[in-house]
């Protein structure tokens, strides 16, 4: 008689372990999967952290100063100091300015007419023009607001010089949570969500479909392995991989981009569980529908697209049309992003996160139940 309690023996001799062992050997040997697991987090992080800057600054700007007075030079200095515009040289006439915009060497052109200095000195309203390349609305928006703010700032200075008058209104804006407004701070938490979605849906689905394609799934069903051990042995490795990826991204986000984790780290890992279960549900569901690995990949990408566009990962959900917002409500990532950003950037506690957590749990239970049922049917 063995003196270990029966549940210990049951756990030790569970058929889940050989599945786990085999799965990790396969992950290690499959270069494509390994690449996706190791390279993808780094690539995503560097790509979205460095390359994609949603804050538009340093627009090359040419200046046509026909006034050539101290007044006109003061205006140019004020505008360039805002950081939105960078000097890209002086031009002699409007045609040259326009050509610079056409060629794309400049995004904006500032035109100061000859009478500018005189008008300002006489106390009349002086007119200046800013030509903006509005092909890219985001750039244009930054240029337009930059120009307006710069002009207002200069106007206030001029008035203050003329009459010693206290500024009647002073709006002080204080950006919270991400004071420097760096896009990396906004994007990095999202990268965690997107990576987990890829690992838990795409990689999991293809791993299961591969077993069916090669006939090993049928072989397994004939063995005494049991549905639960089979499924858990297939899913748990990717949960572990997901948590490792998350840890890597959190560390790299801190090291390279100083993305903080203001809130509770254990709570972050804990609240990730419902998201993992929901995503595995989707992966399992895809595996029951797809007939080949290629199909599983296509379906996964089809699922990824709304996740990236509609979840609030890159674009704010508030400004989306209603149908897009409704679709976003069905995506687990939408809620997980709120949890990620809340915990990492704002230090929100569970008391303020129960809403997205609750929605996520409901989605997770729903998706996982449906897909496990379907999965069990397909292996019978």
């Amino acid at each position, binding site marked *: 008689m063995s003196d270990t309690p029966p549940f210990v023996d049951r756990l030790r001799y569970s058929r889940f372990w050989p599945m786990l062992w085999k799965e990790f*050997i396969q992950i290690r*040997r499959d270069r494509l999967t390994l690449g996706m697991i190791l390279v993808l987090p780094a690539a995503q992080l560097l790509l979205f952290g460095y390359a994609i800057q949603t804050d538009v600054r340093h627009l090359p700007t040419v200046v046509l100063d026909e006034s050539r007075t101290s007044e006109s030079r003061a205006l140019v200095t004020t505008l360039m100091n805002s950081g939105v515009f960078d000097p890209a040289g002086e031009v002699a006439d409007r045609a040259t300015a326009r050509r610079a915009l056409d060629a794309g060497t400049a995004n904006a052109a500032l035109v100061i007419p000859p009478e500018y200095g005189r008008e300002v000195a006489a106390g009349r309203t002086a007119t200046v023009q800013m030509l903006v390349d509005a092909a890219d609305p985001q750039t244009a928006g930054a240029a337009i607001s930059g120009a307006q703010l710069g002009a207002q700032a200069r106007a206030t200075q001029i008035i203050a010089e003329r009459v010693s008058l206290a500024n009647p209104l002073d709006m002080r804006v204080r950006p919270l949570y991400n004071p420097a407004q760096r896009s990396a701070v906004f994007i990095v938490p999202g990268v965690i969500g997107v990576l987990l979605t890829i690992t838990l849906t795409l990689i999991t689905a293809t791993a299961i479909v591969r077993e069916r394609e090669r006939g090993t799934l049928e072989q397994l069903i004939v063995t005494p392995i049991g549905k639960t051990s089979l499924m858990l042995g297939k899913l748990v490795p990717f949960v572990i991989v997901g948590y490792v990826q998350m840890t890597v991204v959190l560390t790299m986000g801190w090291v390279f981009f100083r993305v903080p984790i203001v809130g509770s780290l254990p709570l972050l890992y804990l609240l990730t569980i419902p998201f993992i279960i929901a995503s595995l549900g989707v992966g399992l569901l895809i595996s029951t529908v797809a007939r080949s690995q290629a199909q599983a990949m296509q379906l996964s990408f089809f699922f990824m697209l709304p996740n990236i566009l509609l979840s609030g990962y890159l674009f704010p959900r508030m400004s989306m049309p209603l149908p897009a917002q409704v679709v976003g409500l069905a995506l687990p990532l939408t809620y997980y992003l709120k949890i990620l950003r809340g915990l990492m950037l704002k230090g929100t506690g569970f008391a303020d996160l129960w809403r997205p957590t609750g929605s996520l749990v409901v989605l997770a239970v729903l998706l996982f139940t449906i897909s496990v049922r379907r999965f069990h049917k397909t292996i019978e």
Partner: protein
Amino acid sequence: MTAPATQGPTVVTEGLRKVFGSLVAVERLDLTINRGEVFGLLGPNGSGKTTTIRMLCGLMAPTEGRATVVGFDVEREAEGVRTRIGYMSQRYGLYDDLTAYENMRFYATVYGLHGRARDERLEQHIAEMGLGERRNQLAGTLSGGWKQRLALGCATAHEPEMLFLDEPTAGVDPAARRDFWASIYALAARGTTILVTTHYMDEAERCQRLAFLSRGKLIGLGTVDEITTQFGQPTIEDVFIALQRKDEGAHA
């Protein structure tokens, strides 16, 4: 080898029937396969061989009738059946990205072998199967004959009482087939019951008893001699061809 669950026949089917929609795949099959027997299931494509094997392995539920394998009901006691049988399909069920040894170790553990007992059993089994020189090669890079031998090794490391072979030698060269059959006879000599489906007539003639299926119905049962006599043909191959013609005639 572990003691058999029962002393009676290894496989008993009573009125076993499987229907897919309007198609009757297997029609009220009554079969008895004895312990240690090498039993062949023959028939043209679509005659119900694979469906029969799948029902006996618990991969598919019968529409009607019942079957016991090694003393366990295939529907109600599937767990008991699964731990005591081995199954090798035409597709072999090997993991290409695992080595020969890792494949065997994986299946042996899934069948409930653990620790030192498993490792010792695997060493012995690898030696018996002659897999030693390929043990660290990835299964995906093995030739057809080696894959087949490995698949048989994976299906028998846990010393099953009953072994199901579904067209095991499809696409394998004659020398490998001869080796394969030598292993089959060695297993049978130690008391393993073997059910094999095949297209090859020389293989059919190696079976101790044969069951002929035609469009889901059992139409002939017995030794090679009994069957050739029953159908009035000189060889099993002639019986097969005659049956296939009759089938095709009935379809046309």
